[in-house]
């Protein structure tokens, strides 16, 4: 799965979790850019991503993410493994 495909699959997840169909993902997007993105919805986001991509994240992996681009890189590396 390449980055573009990951962005594509990730977009509806963001729409569901943050209840906003207008969200457009970008590499630099972070919690500051999305109204509903707080620590709680972040947890829901992580769980939803795990389900959609059939992955499990370790605590250490997700705790340091700063933006969507890094999240996509993480998904990319875990999918390849």
């Amino acid at each position: 799965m390449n980055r573009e495909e990951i962005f594509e699959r990730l977009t509806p997840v963001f729409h569901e979790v943050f209840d906003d169909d207008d969200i457009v993902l970008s590499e630099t997007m972070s919690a500051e850019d999305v109204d509903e993105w707080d620590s709680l919805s972040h947890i829901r986001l992580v769980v939803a991503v795990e389900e959609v991509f059939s992955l499990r994240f370790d605590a250490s992996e997700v705790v340091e993410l700063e933006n969507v681009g890094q999240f996509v890189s993480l998904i990319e590396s875990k999918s390849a493994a």
Partner: protein
Amino acid sequence: MDDDFGAAVSKLASHALDLNQLTTLAKAIERARLENDLSPLSPMRLGLLGNGTTSLFGPALTATAARHGLNLEVVEAPYDQGFQAALDPASDINRTRPDAVLLAFDHRILAMPDNPQDEAESTVCVNEAFEQIRAIGQAVSTQSGATVIYQTLVHPPTHLLGSYDRRLPGSPHKLVDNFNDKLIESINGTGDILLDAGAIAEMVGLDTWHDITRWHLAKIPFVQTAIPLYADHVARLLAASVGKSRKCLVLDLDNTLWGGVIGDDGLAGIILGEGDPVGEAFLDIQRMALRLRALGIILAVSSKNEDATARLPFREHPDMLIRESDIAVFQANWSDKATNLESIARALDIGVDALVLLDDNPVERAQVRAALPQVAVPELPKDPALYSRTLLAAGYFETVSLSTEDLLRADDYTSRAKRVELQGASRDLSSYLTSLNMEIFFAPFDETGRNRIAQLINKSNQFNLTTRRYTQNEVAALEADPSVFTLQVRLRDRFGDNGMISVVICRSLGDGEEWEIDTWLMSCRVLGRGVEQAVLAEIVRNAVANDCRRLRGLFIPSGRNDLVKDHYAKLGFERQVDGSTWLLETHTFEPGDVPVKVIHAVEGNAT
């Protein structure tokens, strides 16, 4: 729209929603609450305290509570400050005077003993944790006046040694058991409520429930995917605490309390009893109903059958466990079930929102859900062996107290197995029938259908105008007989293929100007949906194409087909002087609007 908002929210909440969907719905409810009282949902306020991140529960609880008729506002204590919030009279929890407060504390409140073999030390650990919870509960109860909901602790997903843990006084497993015993005992005799989180976790599976990574990540107490289930259990208790638990289980009969159709199969033909897997499944359902009755749940019957026929197994089948005397209201007729349910509720002097309908037929379930959304209609799997479990898992009869009066409730009805008159005009079913997307297939008798045609001809008793029986060879002969018009009819609807549901045989008389309807039978399952009219339209179409001017219908009473004595009258035939013959002029016949789509009609003709 404003008046219906509460009802619309409740209906939306009655679907299976995941945590994201529940959160979205909760936000909509909170926005609406500012301008709308959300009636008929009853307002309630719930305080939420716990160790760990309980904030994920809040929205789930609000949205799920709407499923149970509640407009629930959740007030949370700040993270990890449960004890302080309970003690402080100025905390949000206490100040807002909630109706109930949920103490969502988990096994992490239990300290483990240094020596698991030391019973005394283990007892100290249990007591300390128990006293802590008790203190929080009493503080919040004193300060806010709320009812406290205590939850049982969940067993750990692993043992230290294995089976031996159950024999160690200080193993984690044993500590949880002892804590829970103490908790249950302390609640008895008070107005406080028990939430059996331990049981919920076991239903989900302990390995799944305990998501340790998530705890370390964000103090999430248990796996997120179980939150909707947990919220539903809490909502059931809240609803029960304000008298909204369901009180009456309405039972369908055919293929719900026994296998088969009593009207067609007879006493000897229905399947019920030991020694047969299907028969045992239905015994299980009956046993479950009787156990619920012993706990005060009223039993009623709503079945599409002749009344006498429906009562037959109760009176005479040796394996029936449920007796007529167990049934408070017994409705067996051919009217729609929603109307019958309203009559049952009225007879029992309870609301329709106190009813649960157990019915194997998805068409019936859909009709009731559409017409009476307040009735609980569990979706059943195909296998009757799973009916009991599915019904009980829904927890419709959850309660927060059980008095002697409650237990005797089912006996209160002095007129046993009462049949009540249906009140009001018959429901308009047309939009519901259209939504069924019915498709009908007509074909003359052929070799492929021969077996099933012969089966129906010899098996049908109720919807059978003449009860003429033919052997398979005779049916084969009809296939080739040029003086006979035959129909095998299949029906499909949005719930699936019903298979062959009607058989017609018409004999051409004299010069072909008249056809006598020798045989017309139909499956009772598709009654009242416009199928009779569709079949007649096809007969007439073929008759006209063959220069037949008249159809002659016969009704031969058999003792079991009273159901169809007015069949031809309802279809517009004219009754003849002899009383059992009916005539229809084919050229003046108007088919009318029928909610059934003809996918395949007979091509070419018989005569």
